[in-house]
């Protein structure tokens, strides 16, 4: 255990605040969290927030305004290690899925009309690694308590986080579930990061992908497999897009090119 407590800041950009809320909701561990580290900033939990040097910054949410971008760049400057927490920070969240620049501008006009933005200029939503180097990604929508706490405990003990990088199917097999995909049910387990303990398939509910995509997610193969099982292209696309953020846009661009 390092002698000086780690200085940790927890920040929220654009998102549902679910990840910050989950940390607050770690009731029985909350005292341990606040004694194991010096929590310098955590808007949801305290009012005396300091903005100095940090050992670790945990950042939730995607970047969707100029102001948030400035804030993020400033956090990066102050923090030795930046951890993206939750689907929005990791891959952009639903607000970042499926929109190209033109489409986004059109939507913005449709919603807000022709107005001057006085507070902060809006930006097309992006995961935080679109602007800064991210050292670690803690996935989930929202992040899971067990995974957050063990990651936090490793960090305050000076160890880098160690997260599963394989898909939900592995944990699903550890639980000896009968595969839903093989029963022609649309399960996104093969494309989705493990760490949730395969809670959904454990209860016979297919994986919706809420832990976000694995690095190697083979969407092309699963897409054709689902097509062969009789699923509609739109249904597959929408399901895959839910928690994939900007990754899905990249995938379908690639996919369109291949199909040309």
């Amino acid at each position, binding site marked *: *255990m390092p002698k000086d407590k780690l200085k940790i800041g927890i920040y929220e950009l654009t998102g549902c605040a679910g990840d910050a809320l989950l940390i607050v909701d770690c009731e029985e*561990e909350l005292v*341990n*969290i606040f*004694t*194991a580290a010096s929590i310098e900033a955590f808007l949801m939990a305290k009012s005396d927030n300091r903005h100095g040097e940090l050992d670790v910054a945990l950042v939730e949410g995607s970047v969707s305004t100029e102001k948030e971008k400035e804030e993020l760049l400033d956090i990066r400057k102050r923090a030795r290690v930046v951890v993206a927490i939750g689907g929005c920070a990791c891959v952009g969240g639903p607000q970042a899925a499926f929109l190209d620049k033109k489409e986004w501008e059109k939507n913005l006009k449709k919603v807000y009309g022709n107005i001057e933005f006085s507070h902060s200029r809006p930006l097309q939503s992006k995961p935080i690694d679109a602007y800064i180097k991210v050292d670690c990604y803690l996935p989930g929508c929202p992040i899971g308590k067990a995974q957050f*706490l*063990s990651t*936090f*405990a*490793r960090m*305050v*003990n000076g*160890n880098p986080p*160690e997260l599963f*990088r*394989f*898909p939900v*199917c*592995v944990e699903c*097999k*550890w*639980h*000896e*579930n*009968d*595969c839903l*995909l*093989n029963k022609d049910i649309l399960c996104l*387990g*093969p*494309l989705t990061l493990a760490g949730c303990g395969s809670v959904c398939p454990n209860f016979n509910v297919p994986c919706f992908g809420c832990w976000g995509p*694995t*690095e*190697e997610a*083979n969407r*092309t*193969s*699963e897409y*054709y*497999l689902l097509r*062969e099982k009789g699923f509609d292209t739109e249904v597959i696309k929408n399901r895959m897009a839910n928690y994939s953020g900007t990754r899905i846009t990249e995938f379908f661009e690639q996919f369109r090119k*291949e199909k040309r």
Partner: protein
Amino acid sequence: MRILKLQKKDLFPLLKVISREAELWAPTAKGDKFAYGRVLDFSRIAMDAVRTIIPPKKIMVPSLFNMFNFTEKGYQEDLSHVTDRILFGIHPCDIHGLLILDKLFSQAYLDPYYLEPRKKTLILGLSCLPDAYCFCKSTHTDIIEEGYDLFFTDLESYFLVWIGSSRGDDLIRLAPDFFDDKLTEKDIQTYTKWQEKRDNAFKTTVNFTRMPDLMELNYKAPFWEEVGAACLACGSCSMVCPTCNCYNVVDKLFLGNKPGKRLRHWDSCTLPEYSEVAGGENFREHKSQRLKLWYTHKLQAYVSKYGKPSCVGCGRCLVTCPVQIHVKSVADALEGHPVEAFWKKFAQEVSK
């Protein structure tokens, strides 16, 4: 070796007597599939289970378990998964699977986390009839000569019970009255007929003697790219295989001065991080390379070391891989036979 006769109605009473000192584990229904579980109510035993989703390796080395608790001062081993067990209803392929794991977990050093529960588990085998996916006759694992304490062959109204070890003999001695050691001419005939019926029931075959050479000759064959492109890297094939034994070890820490746990969990060479080393280099970045490793191990490397494949023909990869990459379809591809599998269709579809 002794062979005895046991009437069907005496099976549960026998199990009751012999499981007094140990946990009884057997296949039980899980949806329309089967899974090994601890059995207290014997009527839950699925006597007709062909294969369980996960093989009995899970009883010896659980998919995820704690090896030891540690603090700054030292560590304390956790062998809580080690207990006296009786494993009933295990078929020949899975007994061979355990015999292969015995070798692998006692090579360079003895792995207590596997070997301790293994030693404490009595193996009570049960005969079976193959379904469309079993091919243990091709791997010569359809019968057993070793690796069991008792083996029950189901002949409709009674069992023939083979005694395979002194521990098996001790079990019989707990309830000698249930057994009849006088086999009639008719019993022998019934058994021979049953053997014939079983021998002729296999629908899937794989020519394993050709596999080592074909693996070598096909090392650069284009179909490896095809399986690689379709593979979801989901690891399922390894999880369900009774001879896959790879694992990873991770330290889990807790807040508030609680001891840490060193966890061990099943791993698979089909996963991208498996061959990654410090610095981020990956020896097998592409799925085609990883699958080639998996099949080299099953069909070639193990043969050159131990004289037989490390596949026991249980058919689990056949029923599990969502894109149908399995020993049968890969063997067909190696032999240049037409392949009916999703991965082949996928290759044709994307090349359009």
